[in-house]
């Protein structure tokens, strides 16, 4: 019997190696896999490249991981936000590498990774400093830059519900980067607020089919649907 549900964070984090590229889902606080990030801090892997929309805030979660010196590089669209002091300090000291990617390009690069597309063209960033060093090419009279797939070793995502085959469904704006990142990593680990029996998530309503998910762990995130 297939059973992707694990019951301890140690099982959830097993095998994450130093030097891994780790995708961290969520947008703002919605769908942010907080418990998994804490578990990764506990687990100990270092020299990580982290991909997330923001570069962490305060001193918990991703910010804490950076503060502990475990993050070599961060790939994100919006590093500076309220409370991103840990990142800013490390960056000023040259202790962390930064790759700025437009938000849509970041999403599309991970979608490409999941879809077997090694590179694609986009109009986003053409004519701006972020296109520097990138190959440009004209199609139908408009200029585009080439962008590469962003494959990862690990994805940490949060969904509303999941089952033992790894099927996930999200609530409201919780799909965000989670549903994309789940497709782009070798090892996708999901924290879900509800564990469902097989078939309880209607097949038309599965957002992330189980083929993209390796481990599911229960982390309750509050009350049911309004």
């Amino acid at each position: 019997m297939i059973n992707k549900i694990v019951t301890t964070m140690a099982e959830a984090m097993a095998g994450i190696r130093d030097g891994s590229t780790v995708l961290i889902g969520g947008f703002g606080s919605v769908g942010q896999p907080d418990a998994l990030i804490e578990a990764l801090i506990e687990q100990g892997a270092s020299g990580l490249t982290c991909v997330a929309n923001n570069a962490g805030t305060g001193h918990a979660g991703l910010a804490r991981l950076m503060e502990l010196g475990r993050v070599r590089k961060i790939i994100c669209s919006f590093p500076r936000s309220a409370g991103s002091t840990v990142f800013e300090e490390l960056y000023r000291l040259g202790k962390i590498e930064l790759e700025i990617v437009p938000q849509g390009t970041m999403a599309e690069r991970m979608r490409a990774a999941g879809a077997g597309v090694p590179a694609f063209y986009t109009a986003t960033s053409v004519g701006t400093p972020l296109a520097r060093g990138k190959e440009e090419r004209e199609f139908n009279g408009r200029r585009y830059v080439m962008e590469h797939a962003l494959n990862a070793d690990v994805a940490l995502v949060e969904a509303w519900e999941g089952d033992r085959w790894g099927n996930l469904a999200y609530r409201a704006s919780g799909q965000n980067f989670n549903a994309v990142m789940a497709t782009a990593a070798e090892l996708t680990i999901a924290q879900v607020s509800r564990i469902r029996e097989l078939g309880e998530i209607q097949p038309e309503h599965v957002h992330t089919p189980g083929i993209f998910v390796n481990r599911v762990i229960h982390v309750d995130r509050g009350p049911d649907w309004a």
Partner: protein
Amino acid sequence: MQPFSRGQMAAKLAGDIPEGWFVNLGIGIPTMVADHVPADREVILHSENGVLGMGPAPAADKVDPWLINAGKQPVTLRKGGSYFHHADSFSIIRGGHLDLCVLGAFEVAENGDIANWATSENDTAPAVGGAMDLAAGAKRLWVMMEHTTKDGRPKLVERCGYPLTAPGAVSRIYTNLGIFEVVKGQGFVVREMAPGVSFEELQAKSGAKLHRPA
């Protein structure tokens, strides 16, 4: 001289959005546009984080912790709204499906160039977010901003000095002093001036030649 208030700018812009348009409102002042769409007009608001059909902010006791906008504020969803993931959301943006995006800006040039994300070529960790995707992807880009910086420098310019967000993207600008079309091969054409503002004053506060409407 009676410059438009931010509410007036938002109302002017909202009044120019036809029923049925799909619109993304950037973080900051543009967000105010949502509150000024006429009640009898259906305009469908998009948010980068996977929301179509956004409604107003919820009452404090009705906040759904799973529903925010791109500015990370709690919002609501209108009947007929839908959710999707980031790649699909940016397909909507980059695939040219939005009728309109409204952004704030540091500078807009007379060729439609917009600079709104970084204040220096050497800014080492600027935050771009979805601005470049929106500026390059939407069918129309309108800018909503103060006419000058706090220290009085013009934001309508011949060429942007700040790093670009996208070249040649802006087609209309709403400022506290007036409304401007960006016309290819011509530049800034004044469509409306705030009450008591003269063309000469407006020109004096702008860094590029203004044109009277034909």
